[in-house]
């Protein structure tokens, strides 16, 4: 019994310590002074983190928009409200699906790659050797990746939403025969730029921060063996996905709910 309580206490302490390390890590890395060299490192990471994720975001956005239109049409047509298809597709994408699904894809595509890359650098002593050369790896390796992640996810979310709305148009208007004018005008009547589009952007900013933070920290903090890398990569995807879904509820409640 006492053993169990002790184990519980130790577990709690371990978790608290990990959170503390992660927090210190974030603060130390994010506030690194940018330099010209740093800017170029950031551009490089934008390529690996952002540009390389565009393809998967394009494809998923297109299909999600198409399936939304298909599902929405069959429901709405029952109420004779198929004119409202544009509104339904746009609102669900902009408020909810684009930030969340893009963040989940981002965690799987870019997050796991970040963890594995930094983990491999740690396992092959590249981080240590950089420290011995007198360069802070937080600044050189971690900071550009963090910033690239923060900036990339909102852009990917925008791309996701635009492609999704276009996919919804393709299915709804071109295939199912919803009137083109009402697809757009219903959308414009109901979507509010500040309340919906910008709130969706705020969500994706938060998700970008959290997912990249988890990914980079898991890579930096892992046990430097091949087993450690594979475990940390799995942890990145699991933790980041859970964090995105949990935060999504909290943010939605704050933005659209009537709490407090």
């Amino acid at each position, binding site marked *: 019994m006492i053993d169990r309580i002790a184990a519980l206490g130790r577990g709690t302490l371990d978790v608290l310590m990990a959170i503390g390390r992660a927090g210190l890590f974030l603060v130390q890395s994010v506030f690194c002074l940018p330099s010209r060299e740093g800017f170029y490192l950031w551009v490089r990471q934008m390529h690996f983190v*952002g540009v390389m994720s565009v393809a998967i975001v394009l494809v998923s956005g297109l299909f999600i928009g198409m399936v939304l239109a298909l599902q929405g049409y069959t429901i709405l047509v029952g109420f004779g409200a198929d004119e409202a298809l544009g509104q339904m597709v746009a609102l669900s994408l902009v408020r909810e699906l684009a930030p969340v699904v893009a963040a989940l894809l981002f965690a799987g595509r870019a997050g796991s790659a970040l963890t594995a890359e930094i983990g491999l650098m740690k396992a092959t002593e590249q981080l240590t050797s950089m420290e011995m050369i007198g360069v802070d790896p937080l600044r050189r390796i971690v900071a550009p990746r963090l910033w690239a992640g923060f900036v990339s996810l909102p852009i990917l979310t925008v791309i996701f939403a635009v492609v999704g709305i276009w996919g919804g148009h393709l299915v709804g208007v071109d295939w199912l025969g919803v009137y083109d004018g009402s697809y757009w005008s219903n959308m414009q009547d109901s979507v509010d730029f500040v309340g919906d589009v910008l709130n969706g952007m705020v969500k994706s900013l938060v998700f970008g921060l959290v997912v990249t933070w988890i990914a980079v920290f898991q890579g930096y903090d892992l046990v430097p063996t091949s087993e450690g890398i594979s475990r940390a990569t799995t942890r990145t995807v699991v933790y980041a996905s859970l964090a995105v879904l949990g935060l999504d509820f909290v943010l939605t409640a704050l933005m659209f709910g009537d709490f407090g």
Partner: protein
Amino acid sequence: MKRNSVLELGVGLFMLAGILGLVFLGLRVSGLGVGVPQNTFTLTANFANIGGLRPQAKVTMSGVRIGKVTDIELDPKWFDAKVTMQIDSQFDGKLSDDTTAAILTAGLLGEQYVGLTVGGSPKMLHDGDVIHDTQQALVLEQLIQQFVSNMAK
């Protein structure tokens, strides 16, 4: 550090795509700037009760969209709702000054919007004019109350 221009170009295009996408979401999806100022004129109308009318709601005539509601506020003088609408400028000076404005509901449960019906007066409405003949929104509770009190008599 060696530079890679293909990579830089890719990142540049990526960021540009993000900005263009946001512009698209702003203009095309949320309808910001859809009525560019010179293409519309403004009318106001006072309603006793606007029900669930919201800004951005459409303004129609014979069911065809001709403008949108831009602002709703309480008129402190009469304590009724003052609704500001932007109407497509091709109708500037073509609507008679006895045009009526009614708050209607799309379908049984749909959104509320403003419907205009022209009258027969020779005088026309211009930018900034007020529509005097208005019909308030139907509020279900009031209708039921009226019905119940009529039954009781």
